[in-house]
C-alpha cells in the first residue's frame, strides 16, 4: 500500500539523504552511548541581560557628553555676544561642490568652536555605540534568543507524532504506539545535542573574534570620556571666572547669590566627573564580560555578568541623581 502522505514527503527525503547519512552516524553514537540529552536542554544561551546592559551603558555615555555640549554652547553664546571670539567665521557653513546635500563648517578642522567639535564627537560616539549594540544583538541572536535560530526538540517530536497519527487515521490502521515516535524523538534529541554544540562553537568564535575590536573600542570610548572630563573642567573654569567677576561687582546680597551659584556649579561638576568615571570603568567591565561569556559558553552554563550589571545599575543611579537634582540650594 502507498500512502499519499509518504509520496509528498519523498522529495525532502531524497534531498536530505546525504545529511541523513551523516546524521545517522551521529544518532548511532548517541544511542550507543546512551547519551541523549534531555528535552529541557534546548540549545540556546539567553543573553538578554547582556544586551540590556549594553543598551544602558551606551545610552549613558552619549547622555554624559550632553553636559559638555550644553556648557560649551552656553559659553560660546555668551562670549560671542561680548565679541570675544570670531563667532561669524566659526559658524559659517560652506557647501562643497561635489554633492548637493553636503555641508560643513568653513573653519579650520571642521569648525573651530568647541561646542561644534563636541557635537561631532557625540555623533561619532553614538555611531560607535550603535555598532556595539548591533554586536550585542547579533550575539543574542546567535545564542538562540530569536525564533528563527531555535530548534525545539519537544515541538519537533510532537509535530512528527501528529503527522504519523494523521497518516494512520487516513489509512484506517491502528499504529503501534510504542514504535510511533521511536526514531523521530531520538533523532530530535540528538539533533538538539548536535545543535547545542554547534551553537557553542559559533558563539565562542564570535566572542573571541570580538576581543581585539572591543579592546580598541573601549580604549577609544574611554579617550572620548577623558577628553570630555577635561572639557567639563575647562567649562567649569570659564564659569568660575564669570562668577568671580559677578562677585567682584556685586553688593552683599549679590555676593551671597554668587556663592550659592558656585556651590551649585561645584555639585554639578563633581557629579558629572563621577558619572564619566563610572561610565569609563563600566566600559572596562565589557572586556571582562567578554571573557566571562566565553568561559560560560564553553562550560555550557549561564554567565553571571555580575560586574557588568552592577556597573550599569550604578551609572543609571548616578545619572538619575544628576538629572533629578534641584536647581540651586
Amino acid at each position, binding site marked *: *500500500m502507498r500512502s499519499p502522505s*509518504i509520496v509528498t*514527503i519523498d522529495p*525532502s*527525503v531524497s*534531498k536530505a539523504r546525504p*545529511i541523513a547519512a551523516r*546524521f545517522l552516524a551521529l544518532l548511532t553514537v548517541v544511542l550507543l552511548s546512551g547519551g541523549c540529552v534531555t528535552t529541557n536542554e534546548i540549545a540556546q544561551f539567553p543573553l538578554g541581560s547582556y544586551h540590556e546592559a549594553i543598551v544602558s551603558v551606551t545610552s549613558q555615555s552619549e547622555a554624559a557628553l550632553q553636559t559638555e555640549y550644553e556648557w560649551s554652547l552656553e559659553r560660546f553664546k555668551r562670549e560671542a555676544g561680548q565679541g570675544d571670539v570670531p563667532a561669524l567665521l566659526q559658524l559659517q557653513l560652506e557647501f562643497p561642490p561635489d554633492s548637493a546635500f553636503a555641508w560643513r563648517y568653513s573653519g579650520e*578642522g*571642521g569648525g*573651530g568652536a*568647541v561646542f561644534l*567639535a563636541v557635537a*561631532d*564627537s557625540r555623533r*561619532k560616539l553614538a555611531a*560607535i555605540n550603535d*555598532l556595539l549594540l*548591533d*554586536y550585542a544583538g*547579533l*550575539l543574542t541572536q*546567535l545564542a538562540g534568543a530569536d525564533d528563527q*535560530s531555535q*530548534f525545539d526538540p519537544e515541538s*519537533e*517530536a510532537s509535530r*512528527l507524532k501528529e*503527522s*504519523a497519527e494523521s*497518516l*494512520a487515521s487516513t489509512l484506517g*490502521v*491502528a*499504529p*503501534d504506539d510504542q514504535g*510511533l515516535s*521511536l*526514531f523521530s524523538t*531520538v*533523532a*530530535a534529541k540528538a*539533533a538538539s545535542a548536535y545543535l547545542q554544540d*554547534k551553537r557553542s562553537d*559559533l558563539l565562542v*568564535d*564570535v566572542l573571541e573574534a570580538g576581543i581585539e*575590536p572591543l579592546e*580598541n573600542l573601549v580604549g*577609544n570610548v574611554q*579617550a572620548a570620556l*577623558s*577628553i570630555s572630563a*577635561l*572639557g567639563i573642567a*575647562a567649562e567649569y*573654569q*570659564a564659569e568660575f*571666572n564669570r562668577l*568671580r567677576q559677578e562677585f567682584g561687582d556685586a553688593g552683599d546680597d549679590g555676593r551671597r547669590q554668587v556663592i550659592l551659584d558656585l556651590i551649585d556649579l561645584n555639585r554639578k561638576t563633581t557629579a558629572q566627573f563621577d558619572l564619566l568615571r563610572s561610565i569609563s570603568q563600566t566600559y572596562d567591565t565589557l572586556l571582562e564580560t567578554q571573557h566571562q561569556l566565553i568561559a560560560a559558553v564553553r562550560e555550557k552554563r549561564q554567565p553571571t555578568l555580575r560586574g557588568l550589571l552592577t556597573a550599569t545599575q550604578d551609572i543609571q543611579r548616578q545619572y538619575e541623581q544628576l538629572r533629578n537634582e534641584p536647581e540651586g540650594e
Partner: protein
Amino acid sequence: MKQADKLRILNFLVFLRGKLQTLSIELTAEGANHDDVDDREKRLAAEIDKLRVNLMRQWQANAKSVMSDMQSLNQTAQRKIREMRSEIDKMKKVTEVMNVFDQVLSLVRGLV
C-alpha cells in the same frame, strides 16, 4: 603627537589655569594688580580650547578605524548566524527523514 600625550598636556594646562585663577583671587584680596595674571589666564584658556578641538578632531579620526573593525566583526557574526540557521534547517530535514522511518514502522506493525 599621540592622543594620549595631548591629553596629558591638556590636563596640565587645565591644572595651570586653575592655579592662575587662584593667584588672581589672592592678588585681588590683597589689593594688588592682577591684570597680568588675568591676561595670561585668558590666553591659556584660548590655547586650552584649541587643544580640546584638536583632540576631539583627532579622536573622531581614530574612531573611524574602530568603527571599521566593529563593522567587520558584525559581518562575521551575521555569517555565523546564517551558518547556525542553516544547521537548524538541516536538522529539521533529518528529523523529517526519521519521521518517515517511524511512519513506516508503525504502519507496518499496524497492518501485520
